[in-house]
């Protein structure tokens, strides 16, 4: 079975490092970046299945990143992470196509369960896209 390729985006270095390590220990392929533009650049050059995205970041915030990300990579599943419980941001995030909105500090098991769910979704969506292409005689 394929391993989940996860991109972890948060401006707090300490946070990405700790969470990243714990997720790697649980068998995920994890790459961490600390800003929105870095995240988009990473997605341009390498494939990811799921993005764990912080909402509050200086410069380009999580929702802006989400918007750009979904435009360029509609199949990538995004889970928002936020230390700030704002209904507005949460619903805006869902509207922009995020799969869920988790509040920090999140339980590792909850994060893992969400990532797994997102990965499952992504695989089905990919399969559909493949079938679709095949049926239209595309490679």
């Amino acid at each position, binding site marked *: 079975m394929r391993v989940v390729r996860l991109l972890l985006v948060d401006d707090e270095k300490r946070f990405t490092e700790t969470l990243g390590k714990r997720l790697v220990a649980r068998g995920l392929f994890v790459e961490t970046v600390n800003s929105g533009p870095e995240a988009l650049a990473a997605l341009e050059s390498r494939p990811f299945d799921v993005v764990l995205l912080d909402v*509050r970041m200086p410069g380009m915030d999580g929702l802006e990143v989400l918007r750009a990300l979904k435009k360029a990579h509609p199949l990538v599943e995004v889970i928002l992470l936020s*230390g*700030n*419980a*704002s*209904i*507005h941001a*949460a*619903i805006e995030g*869902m509207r922009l196509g995020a799969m*869920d*909105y988790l*509040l*920090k*500090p999140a339980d590792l*098991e*909850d994060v*893992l*369960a969400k990532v*797994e*769910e997102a990965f*499952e*979704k992504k695989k*089905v*969506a990919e*399969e*559909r896209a493949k*079938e*679709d292409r095949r*049926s239209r005689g595309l490679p």
Partner: protein
Amino acid sequence: MGFSRWWREWGRGRRWRPVEVHRDSRAALTLSYLTFKDLITSNDEVLEAIADLEQKLQGDTFFGMNYIRFRCVTAATHTYRMIANLNKLSGRRYPELPVVFSQIQRAIEAVLEKGRHRASPAGPWVLDFAEVDASLHDRVGGKSANLGELRNRVHLPVPEGFAVTTDAYRLFLERNALHEEIRARLIHVDFDDLDSLQEASDAVREVFLEAPLPPEVEAALLEGHRRLSERLGRSARVSVRSSAVGEDGEVSFAGQYVSLLNVTRETLVEAYKKVLAGLYTPRAIFYRHVHGIPDEDIPMGAAVVAMVEAAASGVACSVNPARPEGGTLVINGAWGLGVGTVGGSVSPDFWEVEKEGELALREARLGSKETSVEPLPQGGITPVALDPALGSSFCLTERQVKELALLVLAAEKHYGKPQELEWALDTLGRFTLLQCRPLRISARQEAGTAEPPPEVAGHPLLLRGASASSGTAAGPVHPLKSLEDLPSVPEGVVVVARHSSPQLVKVMGRVAAIVTDIGAPTGHMASLAREFGVPAVLDTREATSRLEAGRVVTVDAGRGAVYDGRVESLLQAAAPPLRRSLKGTPVHRLLEEIARHIVPLNLTDPRSPDFRQGACRTFHDIVRFIHEKAFEEMFRLSDRVTDAAYRSVRLRAHLPFELYLIDIGGGLRRPPEGPEIAPEELRSEPMKALLLGMCDPALRWWEPKGISLTGFLSVATESLFTPVHDAAERRLGDRSYAIVAESYCNFSSRIGYHFTAVDAFSSENLSRNYVSFRFKGGAADDLRRARRCELIGEILRRLDFQIERNGDLINARLRKFPRETIEDRLGQLGRLIVATRQLDMRMGPGAPVAWYVEAFFRGNYLFDPDAGPPAEAPGGAP
């Protein structure tokens, strides 16, 4: 390609159309399955949030603003997800739901943001005490308002000074965008973990100290200081003290905020910021948390007060808190500045004065004053060793005590209720009042009685001290070496400390009692102990040396006594501990306002014409509506599947009803070849577990015997008069359906007159595992229904389910259990579902509900009153 055909057919003639037409039915069906499962998971999340909100509404557990925000976000996110998923599942047949949702969302946000968007702060930033009285409480905070009131309305001596307004603080917050910063840092706080409280507090205070003061506020502060110095005729040394709105009011906040003494002009700005940051000391955060005061937007002022060259200072209460009925007032005092007495680090002199007549001295007790607190020339304060001769003499003469008593009585008379005052005596022998606030008498009934502690046989009286509060409690002694050890203080102990300290508030929620060597019943800690209803005995002189760790003692705080062992006679005689309630606090009121948009369920009857999307008024309504419709959509979907592999098949099993299955991904061993399959073909683990339970031979439900006639009649009669409504329901009436996948099953059925739904996921990852069970009764009369609900609820509780009951409806959830447990519970649910039909026949007004519960767990699923010993172990496989 049957699937795409039905899909096209389904879309024909409707306004809406499926977004895409898929040739691959398997992927499409899998997607609907994922969508459906998502929807059910979200349903559970919202119901859990609702159940939790309802529990918090009871007011007996603590929560703060972060809790409310957190729950609102969970409820909103998952409600939104359910709407999106239902629309995905149905091809956007529910366009009104997002509109209704947005309205509710806006209403909730409006409550959460209330008061956040007031007009910008406009000043003035400071007000001289000459311009202040109690009417300005909201603009200058409690301390300044009371000082101004004493000065200008009661004409009592108070120091020169000025108030820094709450507007100044608001401007500081606004300029530095501190609201968000504070909230982000406080969200990490776990109130059971004092270390996390300390961390969050440090982080917030750091933010405060780094943020610059707006220049106009800084200028006003320095200008205020200049005017003050002009009035005094020298560069003023001041104390800067917190003056929060609400502080010194009904909720005392005693000693919870910061006062800085002997501040110079050079350090004034820094001191002011420190006082502001004092809003976020761990004990202040904790204090607000347990009092239900939101952490954001606390209007905070400051009092800048000229230092009094104090020869002596202390605290006075216009009523003796230990004996409120005694008609006396009490005064505490020590040499030097007052921090010693108030903070509890010296044992002060004590006077008790009769309030009537000649103000006769009832008692004068000499304290042990080894140090005094003195100002330093360069600013700041320091403890200084006292000349032993001075230390062992009273800091006030009898005449001075009477003079002070008159001031105390004047303040009490003005406010019309008992007051607590801080006083200072300057080097010229003049009194000044530094603070005045309402006195809180013990939260427990019958505050301290005057009688001496009784002798108790077998329980030596170990110690006597000053009663700081009333109440009696017992527990093992826990010596507190240092305030840093507070986080590790266990529950239910008697804390024994050298000094009393307001910091102890952090453990007041969990300790049995507090005993100290040194400390005054008029100090801050004592008023907190009264407020929290914690028995406290202070000033015992030798508690730390006499009480060793682990010894069980009984603290009779009202009589200031500590006994050896558990003295049951005293404990039983004591009034039960007062339960603190959050009801009526600002945070609780806010929760009530918000819960109105989330919790109530108006859409209770799916058959009613009001069961429609536009009629949803709360998140609960939306969720209930969607849950109902999602099932309809799933069956609509499977009915249309013409591709044999995904059509429903009948299960050939030894069941008292017909069961049709739809496999949406790995639920069967192989694609079905005919219209029927054998149970061995099932691969879905949760479905297998449920089925095994339902097929338990001990159920034999279709062989009823010994039915009570009235029971049978009441079932039969009601069924005759219960009309069958729409087609979907009729169908569910004939058959039971299950949607299965490898790790998932969704079963819904009517057996007899009960609607039952089970939704379960069972895998090796326990975080994703859950069972959700829903039962709606029918038939039978009200009494039977009620008893049946009670019974089912009790059985489910015993099986670790979380229950939510609403009239005839039971929602039960079990989450995050290992696979084995999930499957065991599914088996029990299977038995319960089939057994409940028996129940209606059997459940007369006779045997108590508990009997039926026992019968079920003994395997007596027929509820046969004559059944012998247990046929099998509870939970055993059939």
